[in-house]
């Protein structure tokens, strides 16, 4: 007998993590939809088909981010992008992308739960990031809507600068607690 009334729950690895007290606040941006998109924008129709679905062209400048409506699109590689959608929006968008792309060589993959996004807010974000990441976050080198994949100590991360001060850091699910712990300690050490 099939039980149909499941009380479906979701969890995040960051549930219950204690935010640090200091110059940067940490918060999880829960359940963002995430799609990994692969294709060749240099030949064939891929770029324009995707453009028609997303409402704009995927970013082709390495390590940049564009926004179309409620979608945010990150450059990950010359033929690879990440799309953030509002919670739950990924399913529909995947369907639409796949339908539009048809036989065009491409890959559209749901990675919503593969990654977790941590929002870092506050004036000390750059200094906190410097405690684990070898990139140069100086305003002359790293600006709003720039992104970069790198490592934060042992964790692979995708770092996105939101505005003059704030950053989002995306990390694999199983590294999220480690990264949070590291960021939190950095914030607290700086505050001490």
């Amino acid at each position, binding site marked *: 007998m*099939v039980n149909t009334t*499941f009380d*479906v729950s979701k*969890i995040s690895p960051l549930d219950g993590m204690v935010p640090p007290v200091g110059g940067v606040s940490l918060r999880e941006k829960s359940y963002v939809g995430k799609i990994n998109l692969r294709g060749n924008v240099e030949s064939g129709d891929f770029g324009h088909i995707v453009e028609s679905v997303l409402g704009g062209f995927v970013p082709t400048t390495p390590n940049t981010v564009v926004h179309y409506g409620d979608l945010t699109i990150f450059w990950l590689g010359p033929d690879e992008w990440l799309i953030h959608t509002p919670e739950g929006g990924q399913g529909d968008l995947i369907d639409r992308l796949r339908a539009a792309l048809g036989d065009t060589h491409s890959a559209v993959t749901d990675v*919503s739960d593969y990654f977790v996004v941590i929002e870092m807010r506050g004036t000390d974000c750059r200094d906190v990031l*410097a405690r684990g990441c070898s990139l140069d976050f100086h305003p002359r080198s790293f600006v709003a809507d720039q992104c970069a994949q790198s490592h934060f100590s042992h964790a692979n991360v995708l770092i996105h600068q939101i505005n003059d001060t704030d950053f989002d850091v995306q990390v694999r699910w*199983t590294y999220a607690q480690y990264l949070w712990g590291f960021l939190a300690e*950095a914030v607290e*050490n700086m505050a001490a």
Partner: protein
Amino acid sequence: MSQSYRLESGGKIDRAKPLSFTFNGKSYGGYQGDTLASALIANGVKLVGRSFKYHRPRGFLSAGSDEPNAVVQLEEGAYTDPNTRATVVELYDGLKAASQNCWPSVNHDVGEINSLFARFLPAGFYYKTFMWPPKLWMWYEERIRHAAGMGVSPMESDPDKYENLYTHCDVLIAGGGPAGLAAALTAGRTGARVIIADEQDQMGGALLSSHDEIDGKPAMVWVEETLAELATMPEVRILPRTTVTGYYDYNWLTALEKVTDHKGPGNGGDSVRQRFWKIRAKQVVLATGAIERPLVFAENDRPGIMMASAVRTYINRYGVLPGKEILVFANNDSGYLTAIDAIKAGARVYVADVRANPQGDLVKQAEALGVKIYRNTAITGTRGRKAVTGAEVMELNEDGTDVVGSHYSIDCDIIAMAGGWNPTVHLFSQSRGKLRWDEAATMFVPKEGVAINPSRSVGCCNGTMNLGAVLAEGLGAGVRAARDAGFGDGSAPEAPTATIVAEEPVRAMWEVPCHGHKKKFHEFQNDSTSADLQLATREGMLSVEHTKRYTTTGMGTDQGKTSNVTGLGIMAAAQNRGIPAVGTTTFRPPYTPQAFGAITGQNRRELFEQNRTTSMQPWHESHGAVFEDVGDWKRPWYFPKPGESMHDAVQRECKATRDGVGIMDASTLGKIDIQGPDSLQLLEMLYTNAWAKLGIGRCRYGVMLNEHGMIFDDGVTTRLGENHFHMTTTTGGAARVMGWLEEWLQTEWPDMQVYCTSVTEQWAVATISGPRARALLSELTDIDLDVDSLPFMGMTEGNVAGVPARVYRISFTGEVAFEINVPQAHGLHLWETLMALGEKYDICPYGTETMHVLRAEKGFIIVGQDTDGTCTPMDVGMDWIVSKKKEDFLGKRSFSRSDNIKGNRKELVGLLTEDPKIVLPEGAHIAAETDPKPAMGKYTKAAGHVTSSYMTPNITGPDGEGRSIALAVLRNGQSRHGETITVPLMDGRMVKALVTEPIFFDKEGERTRG
């Protein structure tokens, strides 16, 4: 007055802030601004420690990080720091320090007996003796080890925190003396990002100890003004108490900042103790100054024999006059600066100068102040056991190779050595820069750097000694470095005017002659003397590197900052060649020793490395799982019930799964999503078996080989669509396989139209297994689970527990099994639902151990356990998985290499011990012969080894209870089924076992397919 050597006034100490501290248990007073060294000197303490080899009494040599002698054990217990240079420890209230390398005390050190035998302990003596009788060496060694070493290791965990961080800048300046500050100023003004670091607590470098003037004002006024201007520049970072320790390639440097050391243990609040900087600089300016050289004369190691510049620093910076009667021993003019300041501070001062007839400005000034000067004079011996009390001097012959005439004595309590200067070229050399020997100045100076490490050396570290020139060089280097980093036009402002004194040339005298065989030390910490260097030469150690290692010159905690160049001079003379021909030893990081804890920074304890866990982890934890480390994952190993041992738990889990239903968290398996028209072609190359006929919604097992033909991973891949596959890998192999795919696709087969995306964490996987698995699953899905709709090795999509899922009928246990994949965020929900609904089926959660037992019953291999990187699929009995039809796949060609086809390979078999209760240890070896009582060591060729071994309740022995089973690799094993072999165990037991095929349970596989 307790601080009887303290001057009434002067110095940069704060007399309003008295501090108290203890040394060797005795209390002393000092002031804020003192170092431990200056405070001890103020209190008349001269004897601080004992030397490494001869345990000779040693005092203070320097006033900085070049100190080889005054090395103490700082603090106690968890906070203790061995080998700490007293000259760089900022004094704080309550400081505790003690002498090292002495017993029972520094005053009465039993080890001093070595000094009596010093004659028998020349360089390298231990290579020549302690060989007979051979048995005694380990006894001698223990004595040697106890005599050696210096400080004592902490024996408790370090209570302090550290952090390390990355930073980037346009111009990094190492050294905050006049050269560095000038460079910072002009670089900073261009708007470039500048970091200036100095190891001392205050910027100013040599100016902190001098009476120089800049633009007619005291030089420190210029320093204050410069710092004030720098403070207004937002892009300039000033880092005092920060030593640039390493200069690595591509202008990547490390620096250690002492954040709270100066406050004393436990007083840093929540702050980190030290901060380790990893700096990427576009341009580097080295302004590290120069280190004064000692003179190598007879008995020059007694406490009270110091560097002249250090004496001056103690007077001018710390307000301490180290002695009442000071004999300056000089070969150049800078010793006279000390003489002048000392006589002004009230000491009686003499100078012995090895130069024939020095008449420079400073000499005259000193003479005018009443300093008695002995020209053309050498010190030929000293007096005083625990502190110097006097010196013998004699006249030098014309070429300075000998002393002549009669000697006379000078009473003194300090001898201040001024032997010339060594530019601090350490960092430059670490950057692969080449040095040039400047014969006139008798110093190594930077010659040329290398392209990948652009730097400029300025000031004393560049051999520029005159303050005006130092400032000009600094100002110029700052703007030019900024320009090369993209800021400003490189034009420098005019340099301010500064004190200029005309100096006369130095007279190099690497070894000061004397009569008789007195010890002349060039390397104080390790007790290396000029005689040792000469002995090394005599013994054929002609390379500077040999001499270094034979005499241990420069191998102490100071790395020879004071000793190396004088050592070279003595070697050059012994070998009859010039110093450049001798060359230097290699400069290596760190510039000064740095705590391991600081290098590690935050990467310790919880943050040492990630603990990867799945979304079901909260349940596992709350249900008492014991975890196993698999790569960086923590996986449930078994789920003991209260009172159960591991064995009990595993037997219960094994049985419950075969009899009912077991559940395990399989989320950690690697998962790769593969899309594109050439996906199939890719799989055909990666796997040994054929994939073309795999239908949509069907799964297939495959093994992957490297090009050596050896198995390196395995897993099940499922066809989701015409051109869409879902690949699984082992938990530990996930990243490797993903990398493997990408490498081939991007570099060898770029025309293949395939994209691979890792989805490991996207999916949480609960595997339910056992005869009641289907019934359970049917309660939470409307997917048709009927054998025909979802057969073994089939996959379907649908809702499970209310969430979209993929259900794979894959089995690693040999039971009907469903691998239920749901998005990770729903993993816990899925698991809890299964557990709740499974209650009535007696569902049993099991861990990796039970999984291993169950798969072994079925003879399924674990890559990395039953294989080891030397196994082909044929070796593990999987000929069936190797396509004979495919022309090519990765690794195929290697099968036909001569060693692979020669036969006699090890092959996977099953083993059943004669005694069913004996579980063979994994790793035990199988004897090649069947001698019933073989001796250890006899089987130089073992015939194979046990790869997996377990007790299982599911296969019964003669007594109707469970028995042991094992998998093994055995030479020609596939043709040896039915044979009995012997496994000699390390405990001496000989275990007999029957060779079987490697499958023990449900050989026909009916249960799996059911």
